[in-house]
């Protein structure tokens, strides 16, 4: 038995300890974060799998209550794993931070917060830990080079968490209970309100349309480990909330016969679809590798939303699977970019090139990650996308299907861009002495890649687990046999695909090596129509990669203009109040007094 409370508290304590240690020895403190997150992950995984977690609360006062559920456990294990993996990068980046001690503290606090969210038994607990995650992770962001995204993140996260708070309080005012189960009691308009508010909370955290604006800013500009943690871990809180909102609340509404689902779910699916399309389109045109991955995170969040909104066994399994697969792949991709950033000090695709010759392992990790993100076998992303497609087709949602396919194919485009221009292409001379990732960084890279591969080849264990999870929501398990997953209209056998793929590659490799040996030539020795090119940069195609395609749609998403406008309006309002009410003229107050009294006397009030 191990108590959740103890996990949360000891993580917090470890954070404080790491803080104290890192005041003098930042690097040691960052090693502590590795140990602490390892401990959290292993405890959760070990006791969680053995159903041995204890939800009792003895030490934390007041209204904090925990409970164990497979649902929470699934998320907690994934997220703590991501935190653990990313923590390996901390020792290398810690020296770049202005406040290393604070980084270590907030890193572990954010971990504790996420664990708290996933095991919360009532909404107050959920909200408290949710907000803890918000503000601790918020302070991780400005440690990078840019300060502005912090505010953006705070605003969007807070919109989400306040929406949730309102929903929670509203539920409380009706049912008189903060329990998680209370929302399922609601009905009618109030249920719809709570549904919308919780969905907004999930959307905001997951970075779905129209709240995706924070993702590229935050993930693009914050320190690299933080970006990875956000993309793989903290963003998943949104999926957690969206799950609860969509599956636990059943507001009476119109049942759409054609797609076999309720209107509000359909609207969520449409929003997910918009997220996918917008995320994909924007990711295609990004020049910053991290921003590109950030938009891809938004787009993948859209998949998760679509899958949840369809709420059938197969789609929910798809959602759960996608959460895991995306967490692994996206973290790996972010970490790979982090290695490049660490070695070259830039993440601009147009400035980089030929990194594969310096860091082949990082390249392989990134390659595997994008294979998973693009949903290509034999990686984890394929299975989740397959499941989601099965569900989409089953529900015959054409518009959503168009969006999902668009996102799926579009993901080839954007994931390929860093691959082609950053890792491949000419070996630029300015990065001459760049070395492969340090040993400690390689560990998480390799583990994440293997994990992604493992769930892509042998999905049974994950699906077993997610069957237990969706059973908690009252959905039947997804059928499996020895080789395959039974979908709505077909069977998928990941091991067979993987082995056939392996066979194909082996056969071709044998043929390849039998054939005459090739002559090695340099990268600059390429066909240039007989022209002589001596400068590597001129032979490197990396800027404006998809220029012909990018011409077809506007550069800035419309919604960001709307947000800029809102900000400007608030400012204007502030200046208005300052002008009319806060002046140095003594008569202003008197004027207002007289006006109000006149109003009183004149009106029927007296």
């Amino acid at each position, binding site marked *: 038995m191990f108590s959740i409370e103890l996990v949360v508290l000891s993580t917090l304590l470890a954070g404080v300890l790491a803080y104290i240690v890192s005041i003098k020895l930042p690097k040691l403190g960052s090693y502590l974060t590795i140990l602490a997150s390892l401990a959290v992950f292993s405890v959760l995984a070990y006791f969680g799998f053995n159903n041995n977690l204890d939800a009792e609360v003895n030490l934390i006062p007041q209204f904090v209550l925990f409970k164990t559920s497979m649902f929470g456990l699934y998320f907690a294990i994934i997220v703590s794993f991501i935190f653990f993996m990313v923590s390996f990068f901390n020792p290398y980046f810690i020296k770049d931070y202005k406040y290393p001690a604070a980084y270590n503290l907030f890193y572990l606090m954010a971990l504790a917060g996420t664990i708290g969210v996933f095991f919360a038994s009532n909404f107050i607990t959920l909200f408290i830990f949710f907000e803890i995650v918000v503000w601790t992770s918020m302070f991780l962001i400005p440690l990078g080079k840019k300060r502005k995204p*912090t*505010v953006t993140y705070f605003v969007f996260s807070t919109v989400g968490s306040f929406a949730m708070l309102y929903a929670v309080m*509203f539920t409380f005012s009706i049912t008189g209970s903060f329990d998680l189960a209370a929302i399922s009691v609601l009905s009618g308009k109030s249920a719809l309100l709570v549904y919308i508010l919780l969905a907004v909370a999930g959307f905001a955290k997951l970075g779905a349309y129209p709240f995706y604006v924070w993702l590229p800013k935050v993930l693009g500009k914050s320190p690299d480990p933080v970006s990875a943690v956000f993309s793989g871990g903290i963003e998943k809180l949104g999926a957690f909330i969206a799950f609860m909102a969509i599956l636990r609340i059943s507001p009476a509404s119109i049942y759409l016969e054609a797609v076999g689902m309720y209107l509000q779910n359909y609207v969520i699916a449409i929003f997910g679809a918009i997220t996918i399309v917008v995320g994909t389109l924007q990711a295609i045109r990004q020049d910053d590798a991290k921003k590109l991955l950030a938009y891809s995170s938004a787009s993948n969040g859209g998949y998760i939303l679509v899958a949840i909104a369809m709420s059938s066994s197969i789609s929910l399994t798809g959602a759960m699977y996608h959460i895991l697969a995306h967490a692994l792949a996206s973290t790996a991709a972010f970490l790979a970019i982090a290695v490049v950033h660490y070695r070259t000090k830039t993440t601009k695709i147009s400035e980089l090139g030929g990194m594969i010759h310096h860091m082949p392992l990082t390249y392989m990790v990134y390659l595997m990650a994008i294979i998973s993100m693009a949903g290509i076998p034999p990686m984890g992303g394929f299975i989740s996308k397959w499941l989601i497609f099965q569900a989409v087709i089953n529900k015959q949602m054409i518009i959503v299907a168009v969006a999902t396919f668009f996102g799926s194919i579009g993901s080839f485009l954007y994931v390929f861009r860093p691959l082609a221009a950053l890792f491949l292409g000419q070996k630029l001379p300015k990065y001459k002495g760049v070395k492969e990732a340090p040993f400690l960084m390689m560990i998480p890279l390799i583990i994440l890649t293997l994990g992604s591969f493992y769930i892509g080849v042998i999905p049974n264990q994950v699906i077993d687990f997610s069957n237990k999870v969706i059973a908690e929501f009252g959905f039947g398990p997804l059928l499996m046999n020895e080789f395959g997953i039974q979908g709505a209209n077909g069977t998928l056998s990941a091991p067979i695909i993987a082995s056939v793929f392996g066979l194909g590659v082996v056969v071709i490799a044998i043929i390849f090596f039998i054939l005459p040996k090739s002559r090695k030539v340099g990268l600059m020795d390429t066909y240039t129509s007989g022209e002589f090119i001596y400068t590597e940069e001129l032979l490197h195609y990396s800027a404006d990669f998809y220029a012909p395609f990018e011409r077809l749609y506007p550069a800035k998403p419309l919604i960001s203009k709307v947000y800029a406008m809102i900000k400007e309006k608030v400012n204007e309002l502030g*200046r208005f*109040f300052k002008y009319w009410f806060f002046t140095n003229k003594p008569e202003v107050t008197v004027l207002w007094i007289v006006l109000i009294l006149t109003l009183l*006397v004149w009106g029927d*009030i*007296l």
Partner: protein
Amino acid sequence: MNPVLLIAIPLLFAFLSIMNKKFARPLLLVALLLDVYLVFTISKGLYSIGGFSQYGINLLVDQYSLIGLMVVNVVFFLTVVTNCKEVKRLSTVLLVALAGVNGLLLTNDLFNLFVFLEIVGISAYLITSGNKRPLATFNYLVQGTVGSGLYLLGLILLYSMTGTLNMALILPTIVDKAIPLSNLALPFMLMFIGLGVEAKLLPFNSWVKGVLQNANALTSVLIAGVFATTIALTFGRLLSTVFVLGSISNIVLVILAVTMLAGEVAAFASKRIREVLLFSAIAQSGLIILLFANGLVIPAIMLIIANIVSKYILFTITGKMVDGTKTDEIESLQGVFSKNKLVGFAFTVASLSVIGLPLFFGFIVKLNILTSLFSQYQLFLSALILVVSLIEGTYFVKLLIKLWYSVGEVKTFKVDALVKVVTLIFALGLIVFGVYTKPLTDSLMTVPEEMMEAIAERGNF
């Protein structure tokens, strides 16, 4: 112990201090120490001065005023201690102010309240005259005088209808005599406006900017922390035990809501740190009065406590910062905390508490506010509060990030150890209360009952 000592000692010392200027500061400190000691030793009850029972002036010590006295006196004491240098010239005034503040919290008589209001007001004008901005102070004086005049007018109207000035007797009398609500609207509105001027409610608060914009640590903490808290508590008592808002409640609610919104929005649009904080203070006081107007006493008191503590930290540090760096433009203050980490920590904790993030006291307060508002099914108001605190959070986060991270050259400022220790203790207090609030909530539990009991008991003296 008789609570009248709380008022009498400072007044006496004030006279003494005029005799000999040299002893002014020590006298102030002694008076403060005595008051702090007294606050923690007086017992609850109703004390009538001169034995006139309900005909004379009464001082009421119940849980409500006790909490108010403790908070105000302690913060007053610490403010004086941490700003010893600035105090020198103002010792007498501060003694008078102390008497006024204690009187406001203790008195149970409407006219007596007016007198103390004027005492506090005049001392406030004198305190702010130290800013070297005579026009702003004059502005404050005019508005304050008009405000208290209106309060007096309302009071007299009320007296002419009910025939009593005893706060505990007014409600019962209104019920007894069955005075129509429409007759009561004018006096209560006048009193509301009168107090509203001091409580920084929106259309009546154009003085705030001029006064606090250029205030140093002492002035700003006293005006925005101590006086604001006192006025808010007084206002709260009036709103919960005296006022019958009836038909004007809509106007009142609109005024309060607009105060809240305008404060936060104006702070959002501000570029100077003191402006940001003063507008934030306006919004906070709007929220506090709003809670009182809705009968939510416990959350309001919690908010007052959270507010005074965090305002103490914020204004003290800002004052010292501005003193040290000679600027209050946020842009030119960038990164100041990187050289003063402890101070920065306290400032950060205070701001996070004001925003209402968990692990800090402000969160508990916010949760309480919303829970109580929702138990009244006040959907619109709570939505407004959330929107407003989103704006608040935005500019505070922006401010914090700017103060911690610099782009260019970093200005430095010195803070003496005492200030550091006090602000740190307060910051830790915010954290401790944020994690473990039970003693406070327990002690607040009885406040509304006691307030109502006082009316019920003494309705039949």
